[in-house]
């Protein structure tokens, strides 16, 4: 049996020599072109990183292809980013252009740096999870195909634009703080499989799993009942209890959220706010979602000032102007009615018409 608790391999063994030598002694960087980072060390040494988009869900064949390329250009060194892009690490400037050429020839997009749309952080969806309200890889592919020019450029956007997707309210990407978030949602209450529930689940913990107290015991069946008026379809009961399935082909779909951010630059981290309560699941290309996001991106690109993140732009122009400019309809779903709702109401006469 394999040794346990050995932990991850030592990253130091995987650092290219130029990094080992200049570790902690980098002086500055430039982004000479989209997807290319040039880091200059105090020693004068230079590290080139070439960033390439990835499907994230990749085969070992693909990984081996990355390796072949890294062997050819990078002495066998590469890394992945926190957003699942691939970075080829080189010291020899003269190999940068050929590398890019080869990657391009192989059909890989280069970019994701600076004021760009970088890869969409995403999750499992219909590929591997049990609670998804939508797929993950499919919508991501469709959206990135559409936004490709924003990945491979740095002059079309006022600032970086981070998109994330989670296929259910568990939100396994950091979608709750994204410039644009794509979130799978359910819209009808879970079914209670009353005959199987007593066997599969603990009634008290099933009841406790509901944040809005929609679940009550049903002494007759020794199961539970759901007060549909109070259920907002979070799916947490299903996570706790398999006898409360919530997936629904007819009503599941996608919601769009905007204006979140993570960095502390200028403004602090912020949650994404609801923009579009529902778009249908329309595989394989989710055209409504793709179109909705393009609309937001373009409206933002046109309206925002330089260095203004999407949420910073909205804060400046106001939410009413955001809805007006994007043409997105404002509904009662947009108005918070959960625990902190009173902090989101407009407690001033200050607004734009």
């Amino acid at each position, binding site marked *: 049996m394999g040794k346990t608790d*050995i932990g991850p391999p030592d990253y130091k063994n995987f650092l290219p020599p130029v990094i080992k030598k200049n570790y902690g002694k980098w002086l500055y960087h430039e982004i000479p072109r989209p997807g290319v980072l040039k880091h200059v060390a105090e020693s004068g040494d230079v590290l080139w990183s070439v960033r390439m988009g990835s499907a994230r869900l990749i*085969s070992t*064949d693909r990984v081996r292809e990355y390796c072949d390329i890294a062997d050819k250009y990078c002495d*066998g060194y590469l890394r992945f980013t926190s957003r699942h892009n691939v970075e080829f690490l080189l010291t020899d400037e003269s190999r940068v252009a050929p590398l890019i050429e080869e990657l391009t020839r192989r059909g890989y997009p280069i970019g994701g740096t600076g004021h760009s749309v970088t890869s969409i952080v995403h999750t499992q969806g219909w590929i591997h999870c049990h609670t998804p309200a939508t797929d993950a890889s499919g919508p991501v592919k469709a959206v*990135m195909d559409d936004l490709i020019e924003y990945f491979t450029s740095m002059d079309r956007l006022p600032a970086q634009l981070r998109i994330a997707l989670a296929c259910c*309210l568990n939100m396994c990407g*950091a979608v709750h703080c994204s410039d644009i978030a794509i979130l799978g949602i359910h819209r009808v209450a879970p079914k209670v499989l009353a005959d199987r529930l007593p066997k599969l689940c603990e009634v008290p913990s099933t009841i406790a799993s509901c944040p809005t107290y929609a679940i009550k015991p049903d002494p007759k069946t020794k199961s539970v009942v759901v007060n549909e008026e109070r259920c907002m379809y979070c799916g947490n009961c299903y996570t706790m209890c398999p006898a409360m399935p919530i997936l629904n082909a007819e009503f599941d779909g996608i919601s769009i959220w905007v204006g979140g951010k993570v960095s502390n630059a200028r403004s602090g981290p912020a949650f994404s706010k609801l923009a579009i309560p529902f778009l249908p699941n329309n595989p394989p290309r989710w055209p409504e979602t793709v179109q909705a996001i393009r609309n937001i991106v373009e409206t933002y690109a046109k309206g925002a000032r330089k260095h203004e993140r999407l949420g910073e732009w909205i804060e400046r122009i106001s939410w009413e102007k955001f809805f007006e400019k994007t043409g997105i309809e404002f509904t009662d779903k947009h108005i918070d009615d959960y625990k902190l709702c009173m902090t989101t109401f407009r407690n001033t006469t200050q607004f734009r018409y």
Partner: protein
Amino acid sequence: MTAKKAKSETPLLDELEKGPWPSFVKDIKMAAERKPETMDLLRQLEMSYVEKIGHWKHGGIVGVTGYGGGVIGRYSDRPDLFPGVTNFHTLRVNMPTGWFYTTKALRTICDVWDKHGSGLTNFHGSTGDIILLGTTTDHLQPCFDDLSAAGFDLGGSGSALRTPSACVGPARCEWACFDTLDFINDVTHTFQSELHRPMWPYKFKIKASGCANDCVAAIARADMSVIGTWRDDIQIDQNRVAEYADAGLDIEGEVAALCPTGCIEYDPKNKQIHIDNSNCTRCMHCINLMCKALRPGRDRGVTLLIGAKAPILEGALLSSVIIKFWKMESPYQEFKDLMMKIWDWWDENAKMRERLGELIERLGMRVFLREMGFEPHPQMVKSPRYNPYYFWWPEDLGLEPKKEEEGEE
């Protein structure tokens, strides 16, 4: 070509082979060429695309000997149609810190996975692990054994410490205010048992970013968010400032005017900037824009924030400041002691599936601070309370402390 398409079993998914962004469908097909079972994944997915619904059963518990996590059990709800994915479990493999690889290491993982699994992976999962996507129950232990032999170990799942992650930090970034990689690697190795053996009320995540840009989104999604910062003055090279001005950067409009505290004064005549560091909140904006001229201060360390999580159950939380500034140096003992203390308190007081932030929300920050022995300071809050519902400790009033009843509820 068209003829082939027409006969495809997966016409909807085939559509996703087109277009400029790399296609996961191509990769699934690639793997399926070597691993015919994997084709059932695509077939099942096609059914999901047609029906607009998932086809996986509620996860079951599977694993490897000695560990309580690291594997996500998964079963098809139509094994009759898709026997190749009857069971299709995922292994979470702890990535090398910073996601650095040699091709040798990567190929080793591929070899193991080609031997034991579907040939499909995620590089990486959104927590940061290498995700080995899809294998059968009987392959789990052998796969782990081979991984272990190759120097890899599983990451976290369940009510345990989750695989900690770090930004690229000092390996490549000029702004790293502490050694994110060494720190996370060290902490991960120290807390192997917490990582592999779920025994807490719920999951716990640690992420470290070298500066306030927070390139691993720690403040948004880590129960413990460690962010590099400094406490002296931003280093300024005025000659380089002038170079930026000469190169056409609008220092007044793009830098000074966007400083959140308005603490930058730009003198266009002498092409110099002056920073009132006492009002600088180290947001990084000016440094981001002028990295050749401005650098973080020399007295570097970290700010600690705690409590972030996704919305389930009580609503999403961002981490909030508990320690303004700590030096963060190997062997990180102070940090590790703090972690043990926090986990003890959380473990003792939390309800099932209650994250640290939610527990603090329920019991009150003052209780947490007292247990940790931390002094309250205004930097912990955006603003002081506005409701008058605050408590007095009996000791504040010179009275007998009451018997602890907090855990009661």
